[in-house]
């Protein structure tokens, strides 16, 4: 057993409102440059729909991910190493810019500089690649909210696998959003396809990155990623991809897409996994068993043997604690509501999804029935084959059983909590019908519905021990629970007493998951000023306003 840590994400699709805030803030942070105009490290797709780039899920066309050979070994779907080198001069599976979309801007100058004419001036679209006038025919979310889907939806690779009758009916019955980032896979095919070895998986947190200095532009990673989450920067001619905002993660802060998510549906936390068993799990024959195989690679952070092995491998205590407190572990393992996207690609993706129940609820409500009544919900999940099969096409390689299980748990949570919210006695039977206790359901409800900031993000800081100490002037006893606990630490050079240590600049570090609590805990009395840059936007924190003036006192 080789215990490694993986920073992972879960997205609760029920809550996604398709606002694209995540995509926009991500773009502003990472890809608002020339050469990556068409690149969306985070994109939000309407499903059913073609996705971005167009039909990326059709691996018969794009040849992403792995296949299992007859001898039971894994091979890149696009071919073995020799074939990769032999086709390096022209990659046969590479999407061109048109498969994403040709980026454009508008000729805004025309609006202000045009001479007076009868017809008003127009700003024509100009290609950002050639600078010429162009017709806009497609973009990253062209079929947003099923726009134009009657023309294109039948090309959705998942729908194509389903029957004809489904295809016709679909549009009226079912729609949801699928936000996507790089999966930071345990068995990344992008890394495996990179001829120069410029791509790597970080040992500490599993984040998959491209070394920009070592990339030679052979563009094999782009085609080998089945999720098409490595992009070619056509200006620098190097590959770029989602970084999981590692500079933030290293400081214990969530990624930009998570931080700004309007639906607050993203969860971030550590998963421990057994690196020695990844390949074996990714090679199981039956695609439907890949889900359980991947679950079995993810380790129990409370298991003494796992802890001992992790420590022996040099993992820090706070990382193990973080893995134990990880919301991801709860959603994947304890509640088993989260599922991986396209496990059949065999890359062992680590961004998982809680399938959306709302479309089912909507359908029941539209028929005039009670959409939160448990029997109605269960019956609908059993009867509404279309959504369930479609979701299975996305999350379980077509196996409907885990989807049903997950949806029923969400349904049970709705019904169970409704009783409580209406002041009725809680119905333990509802919880039991999905194999949970009322207590568990309530805990799941707190995590999914209340979804507090500090419950959603449990991110341990990276260890640059001496640097952190120096930066914050922390006392060596200032550990969690130690006598010096709660010192100046992450609050930005402020002592809890509120006095700035003279001469210390406000430190650049910000909240970790410990200090988040300190920052926002109103039970801690404190004076002193707080650094607004460190404010997480929630509530009033200590030191935000000057202490109330004592009556009669001098100002």
């Amino acid at each position, binding site marked *: 057993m080789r215990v490694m840590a993986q920073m992972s994400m879960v997205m609760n699709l029920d809550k996604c409102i398709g606002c694209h805030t995540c995509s926009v803030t991500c773009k502003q942070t990472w890809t608002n440059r020339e050469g990556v105009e068409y690149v969306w490290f985070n994109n939000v797709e309407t499903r059913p729909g073609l996705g971005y780039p167009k039909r990326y899920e059709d691996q018969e066309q794009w040849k992403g991910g792995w296949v299992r050979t007859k001898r039971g070994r894994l091979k890149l779907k696009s071919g073995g190493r020799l074939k*990769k080198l032999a086709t390096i001069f022209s990659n046969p599976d590479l999407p061109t810019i048109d498969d994403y979309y040709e980026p454009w801007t508008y000729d805004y100058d025309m609006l202000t500089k045009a001479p007076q004419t009868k017809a008003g001036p127009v700003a024509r679209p100009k290609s950002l690649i050639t600078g010429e006038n162009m017709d806009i025919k497609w973009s990253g979310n062209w079929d947003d909210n099923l726009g134009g889907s009657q023309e294109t939806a039948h090309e959705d690779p998942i729908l194509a696998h389903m029957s004809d009758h489904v295809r016709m009916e679909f549009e009226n019955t079912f729609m949801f959003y699928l936000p996507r980032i790089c999966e930071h896979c345990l068995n990344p095919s992008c890394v495996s396809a990179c*001829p120069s070895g410029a791509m790597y998986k970080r040992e*500490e947190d599993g984040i998959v990155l491209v*070394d920009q200095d070592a990339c030679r532009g052979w563009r094999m990673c782009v085609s080998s990623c089945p999720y098409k989450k490595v992009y070619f920067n056509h200006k620098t001619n190097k590959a770029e991809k989602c970084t999981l905002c590692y500079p933030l993660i290293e400081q214990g802060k969530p990624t930009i897409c998570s931080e700004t998510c309007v639906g607050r549906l993203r969860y971030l936390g550590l998963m421990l996994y057994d690196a020695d068993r990844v390949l074996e799990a990714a090679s199981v024959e039956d695609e439907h068993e890949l889900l359980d195989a991947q679950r079995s690679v993810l380790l129990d952070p409370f298991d003494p043997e796992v802890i001992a092995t992790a420590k022996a491998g040099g993992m820090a205590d706070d990382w193990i604690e973080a893995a134990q407190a990880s919301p991801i572990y709860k959603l994947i393992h304890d509640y088993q509501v989260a599922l991986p996207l396209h496990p059949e690609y065999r890359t062992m993706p680590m961004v998982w999804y809680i399938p959306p129940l709302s479309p089912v609820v909507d359908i029941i409500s539209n028929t005039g029935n009670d959409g939160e009544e448990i029997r109605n919900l269960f019956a609908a999940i059993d009867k509404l084959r279309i959504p369930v099969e479609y979701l299975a096409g996305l999350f379980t390689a077509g196996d409907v059983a885990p989807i049903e299980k997950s949806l029923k748990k969400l349904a049970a949570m709705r019904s169970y909590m409704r009783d409580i919210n209406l002041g009725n006695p809680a119905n333990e039977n509802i919880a039991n019908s999905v194999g949970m206790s009322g207590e568990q359901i309530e805990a799941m409800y707190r995590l999914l519905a209340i979804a507090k900031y500090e419950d959603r993000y449990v991110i341990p800081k990276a260890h640059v021990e001496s640097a952190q100490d120096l930066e914050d002037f922390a006392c060596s006893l200032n550990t969690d629970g130690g006598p010096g606990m709660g010192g100046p630490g992450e609050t930005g050079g402020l002592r809890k007493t509120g006095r700035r240590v003279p001469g210390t600049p406000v430190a650049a570090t910000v909240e970790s998951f410990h200090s988040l609590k300190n920052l926002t805990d109103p039970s801690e009395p404190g004076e002193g000023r707080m650094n607004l840059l460190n404010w997480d936007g929630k509530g009033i924190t200590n030191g935000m306003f000057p202490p109330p003036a004592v009556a009669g006192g001098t100002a």
Partner: protein
Amino acid sequence: MNNLDVLIWVAFPYAAAASFFIGHIIRYRYDQYGWTSRSSQTYENKWLRWGSPLFHYGMLAVIAGHIIGLLIPREWLDFIGIDDHIYHLGATWLGTAAAAITVIGMILLLIRRGAVKRVFKVTTTMDVVMYVFLFATIAFGTLAVVQFQVLGAGYDYRGSVSPWIRSLILMQPNVALMAGVPLAFQLHVITATALFAIWPFTRLIHVLSVPIWYLFRPYVVYRSRDKHLGARKPRPGWERSVRPGQNEWAEYPHKEKV
């Protein structure tokens, strides 16, 4: 042998070699970020799909032929049973085939460069200069082979050009060897030398990083997080500001993990 000969057949090749090697070293040390194949496949794929493999496979065969013909002395080949006759046949026909493939591929690539707007837009001056010399070298080389080996009686460059190159490599330049060489061959050699001189400053640097070791490494590469803070390495002249009483901001000895 006059001064011009010495200039062309001694000074120029050595200068080109110096430029080639020193250029590569400098660029490798200071411009890793600029070291790439500059693939334009995301812009256009239909022409490239044919042009690039034809050109490259042809080119690799041509390079192999040059190594055999120029660097390996005739006697060594004789020794393993490749006599003049076999060599001549092989060199002429395989060489012509390789040249034909290369030329077709290059013509496709050049048409693409000119005709496809997106590709034309990203063509730099250095690309043009590189293509001029590359095209000239390949054109003169092909001309020489067709004129002398295919149509003519055959010119024995292994008695002149080859030993001249080896004399340069051995640091005992023999200028006289190049005196009577036909013009087409001479021009081929001169343009090729010029191409080598500018090589490291063009997109051709990608040739040096052929990723052969990909065949031998494990699929998934793991790497440890950089020990420094932040997204980029500290660069000379950009040290982090130092707080009173604290010295090595930029370097944190990686303390043992708790």
